[in-house]
């Protein structure tokens, strides 16, 4: 171990993305001062808050070595259920929120259960889940939004808590802190990582694979539910299309943050900066009035870039060992 502190710091997952975020912020605000206007920061933080929950929802599944295509459809289903409960049954927002979270957890557990018990690839099960949850969503809404969202919910999604910081940041901070503690300090979190890192070893160590996988999916469903409801608050309607565009960014942020797709290694802080980078780029394209579809190209390119970087780092680690 002849690493200096500095090189070790650069081996950290989140340093790179953090630097990229800072440089991007500096560059864009130099070109376009309105980037740092308090309104723009509010918009940016709101986007980051929602996308962070989405990314964490995927992160926990990546940690266990799987993938969750149904993340967006769970979020969408919860979003419209949340709005419907408030509009049709006139439930108070907090009760509706409890209901929404419960739906998310149940939907996640259902996927997790089928994956754990049958051993079929998570890809295909969550693809089926995606279709089923989406179908239920459209069956309920018939593709029409729910408009009866109470003012308190709308305010939560659009009013600033202090200065340019929106209320939406609160659930994000709570979720991020919890996930950090989970992966670093809680038994279940370590078990999730152990399964992702070496499934055989985890099994031989007496870890219950099925239960742990189901828990991971339940947590993923919970985070998707949170993100879905935050979007209802932000958009002020329960739109059936919520969740349709989560797939790519949910993978992009964790991968930029240094997560290893085969599982066992994730970084919550890195993911946060991944989300920030994506949000900054998206926002910048809007500010410079560039075709929004370029975002898609950039996102795809970012994933490939991050995969390449992670690969290089892995190879460096392997070489350092040999």
């Amino acid at each position, binding site marked *: 171990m002849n690493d200096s502190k500095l090189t070790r710091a650069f081996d950290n997952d989140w340093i790179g993305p953090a630097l990229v975020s800072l440089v991007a912020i500096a560059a864009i605000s130099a070109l376009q001062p309105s980037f740092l206007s308090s309104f723009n920061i509010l918009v940016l933080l709101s986007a980051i808050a929602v996308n962070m929950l989405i990314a964490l929802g995927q992160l926990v599944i990546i940690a266990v070595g799987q993938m969750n295509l149904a993340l967006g459809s769970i979020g969408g289903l919860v979003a419209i259920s949340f709005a419907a409960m408030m509009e049709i049954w006139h439930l108070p927002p907090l009760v509706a929120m409890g209901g929404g979270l419960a739906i998310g957890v149940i939907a996640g557990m259902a996927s997790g259960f089928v994956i754990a018990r049958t051993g079929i690839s998570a890809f295909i099960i969550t*693809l089926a889940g995606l279709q089923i949850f989406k179908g239920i969503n459209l069956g309920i809404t018939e593709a029409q939004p729910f408009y009866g969202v109470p003012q308190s919910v709308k305010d939560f999604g659009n009013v600033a808590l202090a200065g340019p910081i929106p209320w939406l940041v609160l659930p994000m901070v709570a979720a991020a802190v919890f996930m950090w503690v989970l992966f670093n300090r809680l038994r279940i979190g370590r078990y999730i990582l152990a399964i992702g890192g070496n499934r055989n070893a985890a099994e031989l160590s007496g870890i219950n694979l099925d239960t742990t996988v189901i828990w991971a999916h339940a947590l993923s469903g919970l985070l998707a539910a949170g993100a879905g409801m935050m979007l209802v608050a932000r958009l002020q309607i329960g739109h059936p299309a919520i969740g349709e565009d989560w797939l790519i960014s949910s993978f992009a942020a964790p991968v930029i943050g240094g997560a290893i797709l085969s599982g066992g290694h994730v970084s919550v802080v890195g993911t946060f900066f991944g989300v920030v980078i994506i949000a900054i780029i998206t926002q910048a394209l809007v500010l410079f009035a560039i075709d929004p579809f370029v975002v898609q190209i950039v996102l795809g390119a970012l994933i490939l870039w991050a995969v390449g970087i992670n690969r290089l780092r892995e190879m460096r680690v392997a070489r350092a060992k040999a």
Partner: protein
Amino acid sequence: MVLIALAFAVFASALPGFTTPFSLFAIGRQIGIDTMIGLAMMAVIVTGGLDLSVGAIGVSAAMVFGWLCERLGLPLAVSIPGALLFGALLGAINGYTVVRSGVHSFIITLASMSIFFGVMIFLTKAEAFRGLPPEVAGLGRLKLGGKVSALLAVSLAACVALSVFYRFTTLGRRMLAAGANPRAAEISGVRTGRMIIACHALTGALAALAGLMVTARTGAAVPSMAGQLGQDWLLPAFLAPVLGGTLLSGGRVAVFGTLLGAAFVNVITSGLLQLRVGEFWIQACLGLILLAAVLADRGRHTILRRRGLV
């Protein structure tokens, strides 16, 4: 097969409108398209991988076709092969990236789906090509023998060609060998990397063909024909091969099974539609069918394993 016949019989007897020539034509046309999408995915499932970008490739190829026909005024005999080649090229890019990076095809094609679709929308400004030669739409409406859609015939021909390909050509056999056990195939002198790239390219070409078939049905090359990022194709792409009995772990194909899988799905779907089950609930049903199909696939796999084959 029995299932399809059964489902068909049930709907035919329950619904008077089910067996009208028009209904049969419409179902057949959709079966043709879904089969082609399924075959496209099957070609890459052979390697034990997958391609999320089939939809994006299909649409992009269809737009290239529209551009070649409408803007450059090239004849169909040039623009159709041009579009197919373009699809194969995009697929080959996927394959090359997968092989060189060693990263699972899921994440590579997730990224490429975003890039292909984004570039396509950027270049076309999301505008459709509507001034295509009338033969294109004509093909979509063409009824062979008064009943059977020409698109279904195209897919049938593709099935025959692929069956011959996998059974009677060196390339096809090598693809299957590389998919079933890459290490053993490599040591036996198969260039596994090239085979994986070839499989992805074949997927791209078939996806392009599917894109052209959709274009023929609508009579125009529309950027939104496969939904956002081409995601709408994902379900049919996996449903048909999996229902048809293609092993998800690679190495074994069921070409005509894919056709039957697509047929089964469409018979059920249109039957339910005519029973006035809401269009949206059918989507949920399709998800359930996929779930049932993979459970059956798993059952088969377990039996194979018990017999010591995997």
